[in-house]
């Protein structure tokens, strides 16, 4: 009996370790990224790093501002295309489509989310870049080309999460609206959509996180020129691309500056996560059980 109690105790304690393991790993990630990135801030100056326009590692210039703007532009441009399409698709799946069509769309979206990002990048490189080149001039490597591929990549995220929040709107809401003589579309527009809005906004923010963190697809088609783009057909370099392109040969302060780039990226993601969390917690009650 005593032995039994001891082993139960040990098992419980080791399970606690597995439970907090993800937190330990996050702390380790933050620690190592900060440790390696900090010297860049110290030597080059944090604000000069963040707002500097000049990225020329061979001359000791490490300003990442153009890449911050590049990442934000590409992400916003892809959201402009992805949000309408994915919300329509989510509403279609949750409220309008008969079961048979739903059964086709669900695996389609799962497959879209499973396709590796290199394959998306490769498809963009081989198919989209030439199309953009012939139709809009330039090299074809552009912010717009990258945004097109990112649109496809964030579709599954936005569709899946917003669909969940649409489904979570209580049935009484629909019945009350139908009872007042509203059509299906009127019900969706005036009742279900507003009720599901917090979840929908969360889905868009998470989609944004995915787009801003995407690396290889962006490298393969965005053109990677360090500049603030003048038009959507100009090439850009994202924060993620900057890291992946140069890490292979970086040494010294350059190496630290790439970790510094990762810190900036990490901060953007944390801010997005905090906003998403805040919305979820704030509106949890208001939606009336419609929590994710």
């Amino acid at each position, binding site marked *: 009996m005593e032995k039994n109690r001891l082993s139960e105790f040990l098992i419980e304690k080791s*399970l606690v370790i597995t439970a907090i393991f993800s937190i330990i790993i996050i702390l380790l990630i933050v620690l190592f990224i900060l440790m390696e990135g900090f010297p860049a801030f110290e030597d080059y100056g944090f604000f000069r790093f963040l707002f500097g326009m000049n990225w020329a590692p061979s001359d000791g210039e490490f300003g990442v501002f153009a890449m911050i703007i590049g990442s934000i532009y590409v992400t916003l441009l892809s959201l402009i295309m992805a949000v309408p399409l994915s919300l329509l698709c989510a509403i279609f799946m949750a409220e309008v489509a008969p079961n048979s069509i739903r059964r086709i769309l669900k*695996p389609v979206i799962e497959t879209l989310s499973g396709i*590796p990002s*290199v394959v998306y990048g490769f498809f963009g490189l081989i198919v989209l870049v030439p199309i953009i080149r012939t139709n809009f001039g330039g090299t074809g490597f552009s912010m717009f080309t990258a945004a097109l591929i990112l649109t496809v990549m964030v579709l599954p995220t936005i*569709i899946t999460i917003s669909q969940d929040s649409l489904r979570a709107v209580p049935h009484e809401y629909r019945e009350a609206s139908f009872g007042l003589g509203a059509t299906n579309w009127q019900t969706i527009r005036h009742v279900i959509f507003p009720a599901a809005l917090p979840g929908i906004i969360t889905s868009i923010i998470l989609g944004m996180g995915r787009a801003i963190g995407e690396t290889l697809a962006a490298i393969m088609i965005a053109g990677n020129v360090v500049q603030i783009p003048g038009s959507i057909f100009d090439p850009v370099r994202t924060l*993620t691309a900057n890291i992946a392109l140069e890490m292979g040969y970086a040494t010294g302060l350059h190496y630290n500056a790439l*970790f510094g780039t990762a810190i900036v990226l990490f901060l953007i993601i944390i801010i997005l996560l905090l906003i998403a969390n805040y919305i979820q917690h704030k509106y949890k009650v208001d939606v009336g059980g419609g929590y994710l």
Partner: protein
Amino acid sequence: MRGLKSQKIISPKTSQKIMNAIFIISGIITILILVLILGYILIMGLPVVNLEFIFANPIDSGASGGIFQMIVSSIYVTLIAGIVATPLGVGAAVYLVEYAGEGKITKLTRFGAETLASIPSIVYGLFGLAFFVVAIGLGWSLLSGGLVLAIMALPTIFQVSEVTISSIPSSYREGSYGLGATKWQTIYRVVLPAAIPGIVTGVILGMTRVISEAAAVMFAVGSSLSMPLSIFDPGRPLPLHLYILATEGISLENAYGTAAVLVIIVLVLTFVSNYLVDKYQRKIMGR
């Protein structure tokens, strides 16, 4: 008044029809995107894929020859990730559902998993380099890459396991306690066996995520072209090979073939996990 006016311009019935058409079009666009991408990759890639392509070693940095080394590397890193992440993810899920209940540690763990799931893969790549390759001293190796991928697979395995374990009816546990079993005996002999299909699904979903990953391993596995003999050797998983082939313009033909193989692997994994979810859900609902 304005509301009334605008409703007079288009009657509710017409707007319903217009919106239905728009909804259907959005669904069709989504399906077309998938068909276009998969179709293109498979049509261009499948003619390249044959037994020789799969079982031959690359020649001239992959300009010709096959992708055998890359398949071996992919299997190694994915297995390492699964072996490391499964006990951690399932253990955390068991602890949360069976011991902790809704409390601080549960919130913390969920927050941890959500955060891990949203860290960009390139940040994992840097962490892998700074931590596993340099600080721990594993060097550029399949082991370093596999461990980075284990961290990436962890949130998926944990989240799916948690949902599954908490869906096991409490009557199962009560029956076991009634027979005099201890808590751990109940978990090990009753709860976990009942949760196996869900846990397997979670593991497959985690594997699907990591087998497609290139950015997270690009600074950890070393991208060597020679055949890895052990997990301490460098290697080059399939997605990384595709990235290098495509961006360095080594061989378009082999890039198509590699992309097709990768897509087929992902399709099979997605199909299997879907099948399991379907079967398992029916089992629960049929009860």
